[in-house]
């Protein structure tokens, strides 16, 4: 039996995690060109793919974020966001490994050079939150 406090905690975690992705998605969607530059700075994708990704990714984040916050298409949203976070972490590690001094593009573009340690810790916390929500959902709650 969950206490009221615990129920509040889980609801808050859901809204906070989902809201974070909605916020990040809206920032990216508002300035696609800056986000294209941010994606290209990683030097991992050809221009055409970076361009397509820069238009697509923000809306995927927004939809999945809303799905997590309001528990709609919940399993799919949690799964996709977890996959996205793993991709972000891999891209960050790759850029860090190559010594690139770039904006991480996590919340749009043009945010100044990335502090890789901070970005990775933040991503790890978000991944942990997604994992916790998935774990709770798997227990039927």
């Amino acid at each position: 039996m969950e206490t009221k406090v615990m129920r509040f905690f889980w609801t808050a975690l859901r809204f906070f995690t989902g809201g974070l992705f909605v916020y990040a998605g809206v920032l990216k969607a508002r300035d696609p060109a800056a986000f294209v530059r941010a994606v290209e700075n990683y030097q991992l994708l050809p221009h055409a793919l970076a361009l397509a990704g820069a238009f697509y990714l923000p809306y995927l984040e927004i939809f999945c974020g809303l799905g997590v916050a309001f528990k709609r298409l919940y399993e799919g949203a949690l799964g996709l966001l977890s996959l996205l976070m793993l991709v972000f972490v891999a891209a960050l590690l790759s850029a860090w490994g190559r010594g690139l001094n770039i904006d991480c593009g996590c919340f749009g573009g043009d945010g100044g050079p990335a502090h890789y340690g901070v970005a990775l810790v933040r991503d790890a916390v978000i991944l942990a939150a997604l994992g916790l929500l998935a774990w709770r959902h798997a227990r039927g709650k």
Partner: protein
Amino acid sequence: MARLASLRRGVKQAVILLVAAGLPAVVASLLFKGEAAGDGEMLLAVALRHQPPPLWIDARPAAEYDRERVPGALALRQEEWETLVPQVLARWQPEQTALVYCDSAGSQASREVAERLREYALGPVYVLHGGWKAWKQK
């Protein structure tokens, strides 16, 4: 069994989300104006559907221009400005957008040429985002 059903449901929901996100993305890319890119850059996707078509300006070295270029592009380089600019001015229609490109996004040549072209105030001048590399990858 329950776990498999949950996995199937998750995959189905993920597909719905992936498709749903594509719709606004397509609309946003169609509505997007490169002019909103800031710092004077235009995305290739916007340039390609720009009407009337922009006047393409190639700011790369002569050898690269001679080898391959955007169809119809005119050469214009800082070091040969006086020789090359008359043909650009002859082709540049009033209010027509001029689009300058060089090797890549990191190169300054296209920015410098664009800056100088703006002084003529014949029409908007942009730098192609991603430069020649973007054109080749289209």
